[in-house]
């Protein structure tokens, strides 16, 4: 085999690797040039975050409008502070909206759903949700039911 054929085959091999990486980036991990668009961060304080995790979904009427950035404990109120980044084009969430933790299906993952308020002002970068609803805890639900409360 001549040097030239070797060079060409190796070149094709490296190109195949590059194409596979591109496939993993675009098709498998859904990385698209569009996903680098602007976002803004808003916060919500929950009594119980249940099973939500960073990178989880934030949705509105079932449509994904952002992702959960981080979850930390507020040491003064002992509540969990969740930061979420919302897509820049969804810039009119009413200021009295509520952040609700819901579960998709019976055993599915938990996500944050924004239930819409009616105020004219909208949430801006760095704002905090006025009202939140924590994760539904089946154990607590059952124990409440059993004790008749």
């Amino acid at each position, binding site marked *: 085999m001549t040097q030239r054929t*070797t060079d060409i*085959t*190796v070149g094709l091999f490296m190109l*195949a*690797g590059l194409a596979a990486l591109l496939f*993993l980036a675009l098709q498998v*991990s*859904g990385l698209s040039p569009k996903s680098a668009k602007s976002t803004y961060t808003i916060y919500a304080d929950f009594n119980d975050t249940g099973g939500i995790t960073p990178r989880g979904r934030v949705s509105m009427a079932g449509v994904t409008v952002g992702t959960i950035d981080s979850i930390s404990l507020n040491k003064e109120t002992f509540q969990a502070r969740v930061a979420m980044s919302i897509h820049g084009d969804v810039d009119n969430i009413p200021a009295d909206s509520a952040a609700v933790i819901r579960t998709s299906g019976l055993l599915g993952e938990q996500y944050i759903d924004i239930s819409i308020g009616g105020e004219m002002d909208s949430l801006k970068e760095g704002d905090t949700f006025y009202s939140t609803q924590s994760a539904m805890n089946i154990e607590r639900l059952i124990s409440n039911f059993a004790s008749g409360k």
Partner: protein
Amino acid sequence: MINRIASFGRSGIDLVISFGQAGRFLAGVLSGVPHPATGFPLLMKQLYSVGVLSLAIIVVSGLFIGMVLGLQGYTILSDFGSEAAIGQMIALTLVRELGPVVTALLFAGRAGSALTAEIGLMKATEQLSSMEMMGVDPLRRVIAPRLWAGFIAMPVLAIIFSMVGIWGGMLVGVEWLGVFEGSYWGNMQASVDFWDDVVNGVIKSVVFGFVCAWIAVYQGYDCVPTSAGISSATTKTVVYSSLAVLGLDFVLTAVMFGNF
């Protein structure tokens, strides 16, 4: 009794010495920067024999492992009515773990053993010493291109392995078992992160490629120059590479994905 303790200690000291020699050997190989005009064709030739010729076994294994993952995943997930999650299961398993690890194990068996045997035979037939006699540094001329070729080829092979595996999983899950294609890709894209999952998998395969190639060329260069010596060096290459890959995989997984 004393003799036993002494021999135990000696084998420990030998182990430390061989680690030191392997390190010095690596430094010797990496320090000599080859001239681009002569070094590049040598590297190309090795990339061909180490990378391109390993492609067939990588593609076939990747396809079948992806198909088996699809089949097993479907059986278990359909019990819970969540067979739509099969895409994310296959993709995460392949990209994070099976892609880099299985590729490295196959690479050690297919290419690493060949490297050891080739270099060992060169040593046994005194080609390496005759090169030295002619004033050619065998570390630069023979060892360095092989080490670099393994280092470069391994991540490429692992990426191709993952891609073919995901495609094979789709073949079984979507075409055969009837999972909706939109949810196969959609769930996958929602759960696989490019930097956290894909890039960490590539980093893993870079580490494995380096370790496998290093072990292979060192075992060849260090072997006893007899036919029995070459055969035991080849065995050692495969055994040590596999153990190193599996051990390092645990460490890398704990560092990369262990924070939850």
